[in-house]
């Protein structure tokens, strides 16, 4: 198996898919990457996460 960029990425993630599943997985990941890129930017510098860390007094 040639160690393509995508295969290296899968390997580094610890996932061990069957060789037959690799083309499908690669397509899926490309779609996700594209979606993530659209989400990513450009965003206001000060945009806060939705989840908040909150403390209560004891």
């Amino acid at each position: 198996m040639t160690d393509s960029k995508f295969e290296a990425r899968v390997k580094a993630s610890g996932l061990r898919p069957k060789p037959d599943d690799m083309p499908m997985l690669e397509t899926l990941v490309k779609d996700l990457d594209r979606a993530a890129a659209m989400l990513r930017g450009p965003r206001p510098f000060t945009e806060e996460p939705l989840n908040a860390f909150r403390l209560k007094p004891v």
Partner: protein
Amino acid sequence: MTAGFLTVAEAGKLIAARKLSPVELTRICLDRVNKLDPALHSFLLVTEDRALADAKAAEDRMMAGRLRGPLDGIPIGHKDIYNTAGIRTTAHSRLLQHNVPTLDAAVVSKWAEAGTVMLGKLATHEFAIGGPSFDLPWPPARNPWNPDHFTAGSSSGTGAAIAAGLALGGTGSDTGGSIRGPSALCGLAGIKPTYGLCSRRGVLPLSQTLDHTGPMAWTVRDCALLLQGMAGYDPLDPASANRPVADFTADLDKDAKGLRIGVIGHFHEVDNPVSPATQQGIDGALELFRAQGAEIREVTLSPMMDYNAPGWLILTAEAYAVHEPWLKERFNEYGELLRDRLAFGALLRAADYVQAVRRRRVLCQEMREAMADLDILITASAPAEAPKINEVPKWGMLEKPTFTMPFNVTGLPALSVCTGYGAGGLPTSVQIVGKPFAEVTVFRAGHAYEMATTWRTKRPAMATALAT
């Protein structure tokens, strides 16, 4: 005013009694900046005209009997990640070299409304993470106790300026120790308040769930006064706590009698053993508290690295998310330290971030249980006296756990207090930690220590030479 050094509390009292002119006080500070800052590099921008205008307005209020409180007429500086309307705010970075915000940060507004005099913008590590760096448009701040030495960061300019008497107080920010580190190495008092107590709106973010704003000053009392002027609910900061603000000076005149103190000995004796002078300072503080009638117990928590690891992971992930667009397009415009430290954020897996945030809850719970029948915790705030500025390791935070990160992870209020002077006359320190929103107790212990010791009478030689 004599050429000596005044604290915020002392200057405020003199101004209230019309025995000190805010304009004269401001001129003395500006004169010190002119004479000492070429060696210290604590200011990125001196706003002399603004300072004199602020001082004149304060003086007019003083003469009219309309002073706004104990901060009216007090010269301060802001760390250069705090937005200041119409005044350059750079984050000590080439990327924001010409950035002029249109609005003040919420805390900047609050201090201005309290009557403070803004002397200028203070050096920081680049975007509060990359430093000390020598490849940025401005040099790093130097330690006034010995300019060959490090101030710690990232509120490096605030630490240097206050220790040298260039300003009476200033803002810092603290994501992994950036208020307490420079306070420790420059011999100040500095508090990272409870997460949510002070607004972060208008302060350039590093890591949203770990970022805190807070004050630094020469004494614990000054920190309490300055915190009073900056704490409070801000509906425009999603992390802001909607609860009443305590009177932070309320318990300052009590000593340590009756306080239940837990010592996290393994943090500073095993997990990252401190220098002999630092250990001596901690032991001395405990002895003093015991003599005043405090009850002292040993506390065992998870190893300090267990607190640091999720802290740095969360910080790296959140900071990378903030900087990703620029890291991709303008990587080489950042300084080497910032870009290398944040680049790892690109390799972090989402699952690891989530696990770290889960781990954070477990550690918060552990700390909460450990403090259930205690009032404060004690450990070091820095491992030793300041190292030489050119000997600061790039990956220090990965090699050894810091004493400050556990309290960013848990969000607890934590104060660094000077405990004397070690090798070469460089300051040592202790860290006092409280329960959530229990800053009053933290200040009480810190002030009790300062009142029973003489460390606050000594200033850096370069500053006293100028004053005599």
